[in-house]
């Protein structure tokens, strides 16, 4: 015979659900429902103002896989992520290790490195746009060089990635600093007695011990990197010669969905990106067993 739940259990059940209700509601209304709707839309040729949608089955997907622009955008996005993620992680880790030591002006430097994260991406992009300007920009005029930082198709995407690295270092650094607080001092003392230098301590003690944090940062940065949009949107115009070589997948989605109001095809592009990010993340989750140490 099943025991009847006590009044305390019932009350806990109700209150428990009540407490997660706001989060659940937000998640369902703002994330889950739009996601399902987007996937649904990718099977339609959408009409004007959301009226008169026609079901077209897999036609959008067939078109996406044959669309050279989509593949180019995917390549651009990957190029961006490949530069942005490793550099921002390594630089942030080194900074975190340095700023975890007792040095003068530690709080000052921590704040300075974190500042770019607080500034609105649009403002960041506008400032860098002038720094990079090939004729009147500070960079070219200081070093007396003539480089088309953001209008040369071969380097523009990397110039944008540099801004991405600059903006995100502070955020990664703060996460690493939090991870470093958990590393016991004893290990370093023991290692010093054994004659390990700073570099060896970093590789053999710090990195393995904060590997869960590193893993978390890499996974979230890869996802964010694949979704790059605002910097490119602000820096590159339709008439920029580097346009085709910098357009990211999310930009392509924005172009189709909102500028040309082909919502169905735009949805298909973004579902492809979703699938790609899912695959990348699964690979990383499998790969973590080799190098991430949970205590």
């Amino acid at each position, binding site marked *: 015979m099943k025991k009847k739940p006590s009044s305390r259990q019932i009350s806990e059940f109700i209150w428990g659900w009540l407490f997660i209700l706001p989060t659940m509601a937000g998640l369902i209304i703002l994330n889950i429902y739009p996601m399902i709707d987007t996937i649904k839309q990718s099977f339609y040729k959408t009409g004007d103002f959301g009226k008169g949608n026609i079901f077209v089955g897999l036609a959008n997907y067939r078109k996406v896989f044959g669309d050279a622009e989509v593949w180019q955008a995917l390549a651009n996005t990957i190029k961006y992520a490949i530069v942005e993620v490793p550099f921002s992680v390594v630089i942030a880790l080194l900074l975190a290790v340095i700023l975890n030591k007792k040095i003068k002006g530690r*709080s000052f430097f921590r704040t300075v490195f974190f500042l770019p994260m607080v500034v609105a991406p649009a403002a960041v992009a506008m400032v860098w746009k002038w720094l990079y300007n090939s004729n009147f920009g500070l960079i070219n005029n200081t070093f007396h060089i003539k480089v088309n930082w953001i209008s040369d198709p071969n380097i523009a995407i990397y110039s944008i990635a540099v801004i991405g690295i600059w903006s995100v270092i502070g955020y990664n650094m703060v996460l690493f600093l939090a991870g470093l607080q958990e590393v016991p001092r004893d290990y370093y003392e023991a290692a010093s007695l054994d004659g390990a230098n700073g570099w060896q301590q970093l590789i053999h003690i710090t990195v393995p011990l904060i590997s869960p944090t590193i893993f978390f940062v890499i996974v979230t940065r890869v996802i964010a990197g694949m979704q790059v949009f605002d910097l490119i949107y602000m820096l590159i115009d339709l008439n920029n010669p580097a346009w085709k070589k910098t357009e990211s997948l999310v930009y392509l989605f924005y172009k189709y969905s909102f500028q040309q109001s082909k919502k169905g095809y735009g949805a298909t592009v973004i579902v492809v990106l979703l699938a790609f990010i899912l695959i990348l993340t699964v690979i990383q989750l499998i790969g973590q067993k080799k190098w991430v140490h949970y205590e």
Partner: protein
Amino acid sequence: MVKKLIALCLGVAMTASLVACGGTAATTAEPAADATAQETPAADDSAAADTAAAEEEAPTSIGSSVEGELSITIWDEGQRPGLQQIVDEWSAQSGVKATIQVVDWNDYWTLLEAGATGGELPDVFWMHSNVAQKYMENDMLLDLTDKIAASDKIDMNNYYEGIVKLYQSNGKQYAVPKDIDTIALWYNKTIFDEMGVPYPDDTWTWEDFKANAKKLTNDEHWGYAIAPGNNQEGYYNTIYSMGGYVISDDKKTSGMDDANSIKAVKLFTDMIAEGSCPDLATVSETAPNELLCAGKTAMSINGSWMLAGYRDNEYAAANCDVAVLPYTNTPDDRVSIYNGLGWAAAANGKNTDAAWSLIEYLGSKEAQLEQAELGVTMSAYKGTSDAWVNSVDCFDLNGHMKMLDAKLVFRPYSRDTTVWEDMMIEKLQDAWTGAKPVEDVCIDIATEMNAALAEE
């Protein structure tokens, strides 16, 4: 202490990333803010609402909805102060408050479409040739036909015909013309003096333009700067002047592969190749009007809507002036690609009577004249452009006004203009950089444009 700092930083970061999470959150928040803004005054004016309560039942006249407020949305910050002044005069007469909100060009269309889909359009807003057909066919705009027929202030014969026709669909009128624009040649007098070249006048041909641009070029500045992303302020004028066309009259086929169209684009690619016009990289990073204001180019082709920008720039006001565009063979083929905005109202607006009253006022001779006098833009009402010419002292705006006597060609459009227009801008890059011959690029554009038009 350290942990507190980290916690604080994390908190800030999370807020920042939440905001950065983007479009969805921002757009959903906006209608909510609007709703509260509308509700609050209603609550405050409960006394006033009581008196008006009797009339509220049947909103047949404007007076019955006095406590409401109209929202107006436009995309040009330069025009806002002048327009708000005109709107305020209407408010003084009607007793209805109306505020202008400015959203920049790109976001304007994104927001307007989202608003139309969700049934939350602004009460009164600007309409444009690129998308007018789509909005009219889907009954998003308030049908003004009967209201215009009944009005003693508005007569469609008083406005330039092309703009009136643009906002017609199935014999109905959906917007009242707001303005007209012409394209003219802005130039830097100081550079012309320095290089000993006579100022441009109505005798210039496009060949003279090209030859003089070369003479005006040295290490310090270029002769002319093209705006590769703005067809109306560039190659569309030469295409029609040289006898080519962009789109056929029935809007079914592209004219970009026409020999004359190709010749017209070549005029500019030749200038880039000669070095008298900056390369694509330069103009894509710094717009031609910025180059003109910085004394970096002697000439720039611009629309009359740029007036406010040049007037408010000290350097341009002191050094620049404006002349008519050149012609090809005879002065008869001097072409200005023109466009005109229309004032439209939401079909499902809460206060369509007030919205119509405002549009009627904005389209009246009085308000159209004031718009010109304030130097906001040239007005769509015929015979008011003299007032616009006299609105500033620093430039001789006859350059723009005389273009009204040139061959006026309406800016090419179709039902989904943006689709092929963006494609064209993208593909023309290869022509500007010289990566591909102009012929190949134009033929390629025509093929894709025909496909896009077939899909409409």
